[in-house]
């Protein structure tokens, strides 16, 4: 069976690369599309099940290996073609009638469960058929597995990069038909002359389908509970701008009923201005400001966000994540001399500088403004000499709460390390200001306070009450952290500001209990005692509070994660079981994802065991080895992405750099592995080497990246390439070496190994997230190290595990 002619082999390898590129492109596009329709954690939940198609393909291969291999000549291209056609059809089908699913309704309408199951199935099919084609090729060509695995990884790397580039230029609903077309072409390439005519017909059909879908892509039906859908319900609402961008789909909606005045003071008697709203992936992002150079007042003057300006007129300002124009327009109405604005979404910046430049009064082109399209941390680390009178952070949380959907969103701006860095960039009398919507039960507010207090303690300041002021309105709280103690004059100004706008001071050096609730009585009568305990440094209270309110750190940068797993039952008792999902939905969705992935993965792993009952021993070794590789590889990938987000200051660049370098380097490693002997010593030594290398990364990577964060981009790229590429090169050898060994030891276990690897890769993504949230990235990396050491140990103890010396067998 391995005696494939040379030219046919080359054709299959190219076909495999093309198909692999299509699968990853489809996966990324689907993630983007479901994020727009629903939200990203849910997208992840659906796709994790779909990706288990890889595990399921291994099961089928184990159960029907002989039949599948015997018919592989026509089956592989056919599976690629079917996979491609399903990629084209999957998303459009989920837009039709019964298949339309809404995650928000899942907890109130039981009828949504069969719809969810149908969605799982629709997305599962293209991955399953696609993975089955790849699996058959791997199993059929075990002796050349290095080359085929190289083709698979290289194709995936290129596909991932290509789709990231494509996202910046075309609408996301166009990507699946294109990806599907790639798979169909891969199928046509792979087919022999015997079945060429049949495939040609299918190919023409596929091209016709793709053309129709590309020419008439249709709209993306977003959930009625997303902010864009709500805005579109308003009279006269229309989308006046729409542009696909690498950060997501940017849309601008106008309606005479869209206004912006978050938690406006009740003393305001003027007209609240109508604003066009910006949405990214269907979520509210900000408003188009109407600015003029002569402007000296702004609607935000009537919110608690104006607190820092009431204390002092800062002239040099750093505005962090000022994506929406309102804080920027507000800042410029105060006539500063220089403003640095961090706006990571370059698409929005471009839009404001071109399409809406006139309407926004040229705000984004202001002479005194410098916009930086990168993450704040990266900016602060690279401008060590700059200092500011005022650093303004974005408003936290959302009106009415976010239901925890941002819980697992890494936020390096709100960590203790970030606040420390901001503190270093303040002028002697400088201020850091941050606002939040009030929440009940109180979480964001208290976590913000613990972060500010801990920042002061870390700077050696033991009287935080002298440095922190806070003002509360009916809907928001604004905190100000001053680098030097607040003066009597400043506290007077804060009181006057509060009184004029019907706000209440919450924290002042000489705060009095009776002035805290003069205008706005709080919901939770214990709230102020919580605040005072935090200010007094009561660590026990912080640790024992029902929600996670300890400050976030770079190792666990989840500022919006408040759920304590051990408290779920108590939360259900207090708030009602039906309410728990809406308190911390994001975390719970990841938990559900993990549970369902583990369940299905176990099914895919255990089922083939029935077939392998009569096979030789060593199944435990196979499970350990390939399971460890699946987890180890993905854990390292996740950690590297996290670390390089800070390094490059841009998640998209980080993801591109990490994934493409990892896949290509692993591919090269896989190719080279073909020259190594398939003896137990090879994976033993390489596994140990990777383990030691990653151990070094656990302790040194962060420091190396911090030392080199301010160097030039070309140097950064070289350093990244080396840091990511070297371990990946060796990691790429482990899978093909293992497959070669297993195939020579007991060929019936090879499909099982493929399924195990696929299943564990899927489980590991949600598992890594949960470990990171609960224990931090260091622990995730430590687990990855252990995985490679375990894989190595399998071959150190191969005689015991496999019970006998491996004997070369006839593979087919």
């Amino acid at each position, binding site marked *: 069976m391995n005696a494939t002619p040379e030219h046919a082999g080359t054709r299959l390898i190219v076909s495999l690369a093309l198909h692999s590129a299509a699968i990853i492109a489809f996966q990324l596009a689907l993630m983007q599309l479901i994020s727009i329709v629903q939200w990203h954690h849910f997208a992840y939940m659906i796709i994790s099940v779909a990706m288990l198609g890889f595990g399921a393909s291994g099961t089928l291969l184990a159960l029907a290996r002989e039949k599948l291999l015997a018919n592989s000549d026509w089956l592989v291209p056919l599976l690629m073609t079917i996979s491609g056609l399903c990629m084209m059809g999957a998303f459009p089908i989920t837009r039709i009638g019964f298949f339309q699913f809404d995650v*928000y*309704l899942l*907890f*109130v*309408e039981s009828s949504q469960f069969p719809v969810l199951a149908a969605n799982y199935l629709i997305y599962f099919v293209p991955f399953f058929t696609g993975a089955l084609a790849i699996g058959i090729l791997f199993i059929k060509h075990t002796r050349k597995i290095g080359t085929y695995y190289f083709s698979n990884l290289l194709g995936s790397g290129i596909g991932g990069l290509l789709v990231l580039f494509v996202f910046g230029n075309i609408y996301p609903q166009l990507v699946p038909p294109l990806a599907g077309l790639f798979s169909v072409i891969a199928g046509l390439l792979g087919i022999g002359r015997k079945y060429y005519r049949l495939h040609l017909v299918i190919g023409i059909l596929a091209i016709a389908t793709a053309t129709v879908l590309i020419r008439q892509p249709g709209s993306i039906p977003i*959930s*009625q*509970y997303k902010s864009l*859908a*709500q805005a579109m*319900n*308003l*009279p006269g609402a229309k989308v006046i701008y729409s542009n696909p961008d690498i950060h997501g789909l940017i849309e601008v909606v106008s309606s*005479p*009923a869209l*206004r*912006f*005045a*978050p*938690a*406006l003071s*009740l*003393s305001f*008697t003027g*007209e*609240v201005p109508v604003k066009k709203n910006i949405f990214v992936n269907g979520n509210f992002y900000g408003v188009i400001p109407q600015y003029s150079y002569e402007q000296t007042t702004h609607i935000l003057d009537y919110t608690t966000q104006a607190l820092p300006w009431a204390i002092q007129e800062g002239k040099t300002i750093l505005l962090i994540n000022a994506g929406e124009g309102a804080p920027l327009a507000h800042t410029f109405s105060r006539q500063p001399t220089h403003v640095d604005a961090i706006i990571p979404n370059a698409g929005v910046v471009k839009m404001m500088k071109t399409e809406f430049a006139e309407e926004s009064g040229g705000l984004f082109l202001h002479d005194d403004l410098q916009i930086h399209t990168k993450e704040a941390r990266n900016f602060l680390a690279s401008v060590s000499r700059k200092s500011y009178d005022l650093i303004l952070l974005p408003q936290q949380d959302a*009106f*009415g*709460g*976010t*239901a925890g959907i941002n819980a697992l969103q890494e936020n390096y701006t709100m960590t203790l390390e970030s606040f420390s860095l901001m503190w270093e960039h303040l002028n002697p009398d400088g201020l850091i200001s941050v606002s939040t919507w*009030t929440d*009940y*039960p109180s979480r964001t507010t208290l976590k913000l306070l613990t972060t500010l207090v801990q920042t002061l303690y870390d700077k050696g300041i033991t009287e935080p009450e002298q440095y922190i002021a806070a003002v509360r309105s*009916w*809907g928001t709280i604004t905190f100000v952290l001053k680098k030097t103690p607040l003066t009597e004059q400043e506290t007077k100004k804060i009181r006057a500001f509060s009184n004029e706008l*019907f706000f209440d001071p919450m924290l002042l050096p000489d705060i009095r209990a009776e002035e805290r609730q003069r*205008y*706005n*009585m*709080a*919901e*939770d009568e*214990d709230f102020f005692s919580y605040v005072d305990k935090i200010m007094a440094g009561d660590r026990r209270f912080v640790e*024992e*509070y*029902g*929600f996670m309110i300890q400050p976030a750190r770079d190792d666990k940068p989840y500022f919006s994660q408040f759920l*304590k797993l*051990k*408290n779920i039952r*108590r*939360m259900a008792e*207090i*708030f*009602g079981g*039906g*309410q728990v999902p*809406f*308190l911390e939905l994001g975390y719970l969705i990841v938990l559900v994802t993990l549970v369902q992935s583990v369940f299905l993965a176990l099914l895919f792993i255990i089922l083939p065991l029935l077939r392998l009952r009569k096979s030789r021993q060593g199944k435990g070794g196979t499970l350990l080895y390939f399971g460890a590789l699946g987890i180890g590889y993905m854990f390292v990938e996740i950690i590297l992405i996290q670390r390089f987000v800070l390094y490059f200051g841009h998640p998209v660049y980080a993801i591109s750099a990490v994934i493409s370098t990892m896949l290509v380097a692993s591919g090269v490693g896989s190719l080279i592995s073909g020259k190594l002997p398939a003896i137990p010593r090879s994976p033993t030594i390489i596994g140990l080497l990777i383990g030691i290398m990653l151990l070094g990364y656990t302790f040194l990577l962060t420091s190396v990246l911090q030392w080199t964060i301010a160097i030039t981009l070309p140097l950064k790229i070289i350093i990244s390439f080396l840091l990511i590429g070297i371990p990946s090169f060796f990691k790429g050898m482990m899978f093909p070496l293992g497959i070669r060994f297993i195939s020579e030891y007991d060929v019936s276990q090879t499909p099982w190994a493929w399924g195990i690897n696929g299943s564990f890769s899927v489980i590991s993504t949600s598992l890594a997230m949960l470990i990171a949230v609960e224990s931090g990235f260091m622990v995730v990396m430590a687990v990855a190290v252990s995985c490679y050491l375990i894989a190595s140990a399998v071959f150190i103890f191969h005689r015991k595990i496999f019970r006998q010396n491996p004997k070369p067998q006839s593979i087919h």
Partner: protein
Amino acid sequence: MKKKLIFPLLLLVCIAPEVWADSFERDRNAMVRSQIRARGIRDHATLEAMRSVPRHLYVPAAQMRFAYHDRPLPIGYGQTISQPYIVAYMTEIIRPKPDHKVLEIGTGSGYQAAILAEIIDQVYTIEIIRPLGDQARRKLEAQYNNVHVKIADGYYGWEEHAPFDAIVVTAAAEYIPPPLVEQLKAGGRMIIPVGSPFQMQHLMLVEKKEDGEITTRSLMPVRFVPFDRAD
């Protein structure tokens, strides 16, 4: 055989609506008893209104069997009909009297307006989403002649009929429109929910004092045990 079937079928057709109506009434009484009275609502007029208004007629057909459950329900367009207790609480907290004039912002299903119309002489309600507003208008006008429905942007209130003794804002908003504050009588009360769809709603009471000073009070409709300890 066919003839034998006709009689039971006719009987079924005749008595089924009665049976269903009885069943809904039982559910409604149970709702008032276990969800509303049990949580401390004591205002007689409010309790009577909650007993009288057939909530199941204000929810979509697919949701009818859940109409008296202790939770909000989806009514389309990303909107919900509030949990029965919240409707009762919002009604009681504005201290409604028959001679009052009340403005509701966000008609939605029309249920809150119907409850108010059972107690108050003049109810003005505004809905911004036309299909919802039209549907609610049909239902309310069939039952009441003291409810006035307008499809418009609630931001401006209803100036011709201002000032109002109370304003009930049923749709949560990031800001309180200044015209609404202006159209509230001195000494009047405005109630506003805060919270996303399906989430446990907490409410805010805005009071306009005689001297024009405005105060707010966040209200916890259900008094929870303070959630400050893990154990």
